[in-house]
């Protein structure tokens, strides 16, 4: 019934897909983190136009399906004459999407810091910018690690949507094997297990980061 040998034989191909998934995800995570912090800081900067732009951006990202965003980058840009490979379309779409959600996490994190911290910083003559950089952001980082971890896990799993633009990531690799062998249950079970392992590693890293690196306050 359950064809274990098929899974073992398929493993090298699936792992290659997993490696693709990891690469897309890591690049998108880096892109998303940078974008998320920039947008998050912009939305608490007190500068009205920046705040408005960030708000519009977050509304767009939150209000449209990720799959449509991926299509917009891959097929949409191609129709305008900018044709990107599936890999980079994936990195950009996932990064832009995740950045929008992360911006909200960062904004909420900064706003959750006691107002007294800001007042004390302003009272010794720090500007808004200095207060953000030296006082608020360091305290926010530790606080947002758990919600950011959730977001990064979501991003990694969402990369399976890139199968729709034929990127050779893990889910698509599984689909290709199934198209040949019809062993949908075995292969999807194996694919699911690999995602689970990758996500576990990611969340373990985040726990370590929270406990070891930002342990001091």
């Amino acid at each position, binding site marked *: 019934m359950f064809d274990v040998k098929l899974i073992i034989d398929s493993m090298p191909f699936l792992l290659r897909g997993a490696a693709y998934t990891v690469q897309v995800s890591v690049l998108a995570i880096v892109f998303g983190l940078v974008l998320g912090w920039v947008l998050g800081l912009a939305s608490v900067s007190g500068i009205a136009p920046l705040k408005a732009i960030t708000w519009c951006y977050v509304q767009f990202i939150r209000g449209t399906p990720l799959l449509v965003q991926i299509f917009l980058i891959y097929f949409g840009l191609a129709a305008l004459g900018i044709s990107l490979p599936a890999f980079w379309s994936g990195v950009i779409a996932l990064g832009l999407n995740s950045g929008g959600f992360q911006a909200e996490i960062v904004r909420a994190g900064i706003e959750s810091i*006691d107002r*007294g*911290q800001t*007042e*004390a*910083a*302003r*009272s*010794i*003559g*720090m*500007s*808004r910018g*200095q207060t953000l950089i*030296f*006082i608020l952001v*360091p*305290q926010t980082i530790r606080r947002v690690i758990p919600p950011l971890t959730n977001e990064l896990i979501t991003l990694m799993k969402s990369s399976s949507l890139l199968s729709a633009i034929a990127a050779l990531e893990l889910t698509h690799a599984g689909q290709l094997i199934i198209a040949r062998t019809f062993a949908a249950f075995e292969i999807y079970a194996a694919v699911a297990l690999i995602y689970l392992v990758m996500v576990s590693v990611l969340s373990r890293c985040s726990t370590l980061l929270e406990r070891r690196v930002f342990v*001091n*306050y």
Partner: protein
Amino acid sequence: MPILRLEHLSKSFAATQVLRDVSLSVERGEILIIIGPSGSGKTTLLRCLHCLEVPDRGSIELDGVAFGTCRGADRAWSPDPPAAMDRKRRRIGFVFQRFNLFANLTALDNVSIGPQRVLRVPKADARARAAILLERLGLAAHAAKLPSQLSGGQQQRVAIARALSMDPVLMLFDEPTSALDPELVGEVLQTMKDLARSGMTMIVVTHELDFAREVGDRVIFMDGGAIVEEGKPAEIFGNPKHERTRTFLRRLLREAQSHRLPEAAATGVEGEAPRLSPLAERRD
């Protein structure tokens, strides 16, 4: 010439007017005590002085320099550009009721960050000066600790050192001991007394009457957003002219007594019904 001059300061939060046409001036080296019931506008007055709160009307002048501009017949107040405001504001030290030490920085860094980042003092110099300040306030042993590792009294003294690190010409204290356990109040008051003796100009909002009597040069009683009465501590505490001042002082004394109930009971002094654990009640 007064170092601080406030004229016709008014401030409302939505429909509530918290400051009504408050004018006062403070001489160099003077210790001004502000007392009054909660909601009387004392804290808002201090916060307006430091532009943590934006006054609606009036003028503020520190050492001959105007804070913001005051225009027209109705004296509408508008702030300076942010950079100028930051520059002016740092000449006033502010000590908060709840300390507000930077939670991510050690005691030493709390005291050195202002000079280092705002005044652009080289890091080593800023830290050396911070260490001297902490030493002077008897906190040398705690320099490397984070605020969460310090007692309330120690935190408040570090906060005083932080304010002093910017070499202010005026120090504002907003109920600096009211968030402290009673046994920690003394060390903070002692630090403030030493500071007063060193010639610092201070405005202190407080309910500590003994401190006010001993250190204060002048006492202001505020109620309903206005100055009701002012005078020497001996006059205000010994012979208050206004009924509202008398009522307030009576209530304050009664509260002070009920907090000291254990000893009072031991010496047979009558008091209100015993409060089981005043210490536990006042803990943060």
